[in-house]
């Protein structure tokens, strides 16, 4: 029982972090039907900025996180305006090239500026070995609680932005029917910039929530983003709520499956790269059998 609870708590922790990054992916996909292959390294870059502000410029950790979120939001807006908008969204190859290229560039710059070694990332929450609540013998770390709370707060903020502000309404309009939004006078370009800015900020936040556990190095987000993709795909690439639920499902499957698989002979190979394979399988299965995911809008399927 204790082991089970521990696995559940680990799942909650990862789930919340994946959820935040998955939201970033969903925001962009909703508005543009584009998949941002640079999302991972944009988040990585933002996390490095946070680290730099916190450890070298003496910012308090949450101050650093907010500052980095703002900076990356600005970066996201610029990326949309300069790199994405010039291209016809229905021709996918240029967008793939641009986002992959951007991803490489960001990783390279991070490696050049901050080195390829691993760095310790300061935790946004109390994280001493004694910082946990004991429930049923398992340890619910304060970090887990903090990550969950952060996720809920951000969801709340996102809800308010999307449903109570004019730009949020414009964003939902563009996501729903881009042509009609032009017909009501919405300026689609600036609205998309806003969407990318929001997504970039979310990505950065997601990175800061996991960085402590995985340690900071230029490829750290690239290794994790596949989980966020799996979560988003499972939830339906254009559903924010779906992405959150998908994130927890993916995290729980990983956490529970890994723990129990270790006990089944023949499945031990799963140990180090299990998680990746699970995520891959999730994506594959969802796209094969239910491309709209759990909560996404169904699109007309072609052969």
């Amino acid at each position, binding site marked *: 029982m204790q082991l089970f609870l521990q696995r559940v708590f680990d799942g909650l922790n990862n789930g919340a972090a994946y959820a935040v990054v998955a939201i970033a992916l969903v925001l962009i996909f909703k508005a543009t*039907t*584009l*998949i941002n*292959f640079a999302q991972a390294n944009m988040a990585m870059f933002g996390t490095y900025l946070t680290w730099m502000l916190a450890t070298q410029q003496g910012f308090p950790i949450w101050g650093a996180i907010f500052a980095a979120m703002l900076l990356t939001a600005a970066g996201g807006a610029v990326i949309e305006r300069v*790199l994405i908008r*010039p*291209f016809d969204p229905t021709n*996918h*190859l*240029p*967008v*793939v*090239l*641009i986002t*992959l*290229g*951007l*991803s*490489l*560039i*960001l*990783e*390279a*710059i991070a*490696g*050049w500026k901050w080195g*390829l070694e691993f760095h310790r990332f300061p935790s946004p929450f109390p994280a001493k070995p004694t910082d946990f609540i004991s429930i049923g013998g398992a340890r619910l770390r304060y970090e887990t609680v903090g990550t969950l709370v952060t996720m809920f707060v951000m969801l709340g903020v996102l809800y308010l932005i999307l449903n109570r502000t004019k730009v949020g309404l414009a964003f939902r309009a563009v996501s729903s029917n881009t042509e009609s939004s032009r017909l009501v006078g919405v300026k689609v370009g600036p609205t998309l910039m806003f969407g990318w800015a929001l997504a970039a900020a979310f990505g950065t936040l997601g990175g800061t929530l996991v960085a402590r556990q995985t340690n900071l190095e*230029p490829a750290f987000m690239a290794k994790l983003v*596949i989980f966020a*993709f799996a979560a988003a*795909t499972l939830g339906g690439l254009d559903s924010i709520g779906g992405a959150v639920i998908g994130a927890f499902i993916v995290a729980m499957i990983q956490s529970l499956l890994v723990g129990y698989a270790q006990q089944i002979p*023949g499945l*031990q*190979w799963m140990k180090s*790269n299990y998680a*990746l*394979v699970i*995520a*891959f399988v999730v*994506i*594959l299965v969802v*796209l*094969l059998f239910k*491309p709209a995911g759990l909560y996404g809008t169904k699109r007309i*399927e*072609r*052969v």
Partner: protein
Amino acid sequence: MTATVQGSGRGRALITAREGSAQHRTFQFVGWGIFALFAVIVPYTLPNFRVSQFGQAIAFGVIILGINLIIGYSGLLSLGHIAFAGAGAYTTMILVNDNRWDYWMTWPVVIVICFAFGVLIGLPALRIQGLYLALITIALAYTFPILLKIDEWGISTTTGGDNGRTIGEVLRPPSWARSLFLLNSKNPQQQQAIYQFICFFGVAFVTFVLVRNLIKSRPGRGIIAIRDNQIGAAVSGVAIARYKVIAFGISAAIAGIGGSLLAINLASVGPSSFDFRYAILTLMGLVLGGVATLHGNWIGGILLVFLQDLASRVEFTAIPFFKIERGSPLTQAVFGLILVLVAFFAPGGLMSLAKKVKVKIIRVIPNPPTAPGGASVLADGTPVAEGELTGAAR
């Protein structure tokens, strides 16, 4: 004989000729001549390691050809074809090392296995569109090296795990080849290098011709039709599912052959040659060379090999802030930058630039499909009288 030029007239070409005319043929002949010269100069005048590099470029060229078939001509965004190349390479390595097969004998097996693998991936790809497909195939490229390193079921012992394995055999020229290619005066290393290059070159030529004919054939035009207008193609009777799956199969098989060539060229195989990084590099080679062109993949292969070579040796220390030391991570930024720049400025790759140059040199006027005397003809050559309805309109 020069025909009158009509049409867009975007600047005069140096030469204007009818398709099939003497001038046109001469131009083509000169083109082939330059090409043949290249085939001779490289192996016989350059040092061994350079010859080997060009061989590597050809191997990558074949891999990229496979990728070109699926992305360029079929319009299916498969970014994981490097996994098929890897499958080909490993198949060859295992057969040569563990089963003592002759290198060329491994090819039929490689083709069959990679074709099957391609079909396996192609079937689910039927239900996955556009960027989703890109996503899933990137995941494939990511996962393939991991699968090679699995310790269970003896996998990593066979594949050599993280480090891979070397190949026990090399391409040794048989005696008739030694005489034919004037190798007897050279030392063994040179003989091998030249022979390998010549074989690769032959393979490249054959695959080029095969693919060119494939593109022009009915199935080839079918898959291109699917790429450009799926609904239109379906309505015209093209069996969408079958074509897409076969496209996956064939492109995978070609990539597999390329992988096999690479294996013998490098004399070893390892997971790091077929990972995500190389998925990006081969993609970059393709777009730099020219997507959906017949020659772009070869240019891509050459660029891939020599850009990497350059990147490993480049050093830029002039401006203190922008110092790039040898082997610095910033060299990776160059590749990223290339991808972005290509998307903006040369989506057609170098081949599109080459075409612009060619148009300035010669303008070929295609022959209209008419019978002598100018009357219109049906496909089988029977003449049609004025005003008569043809085909479906009847």
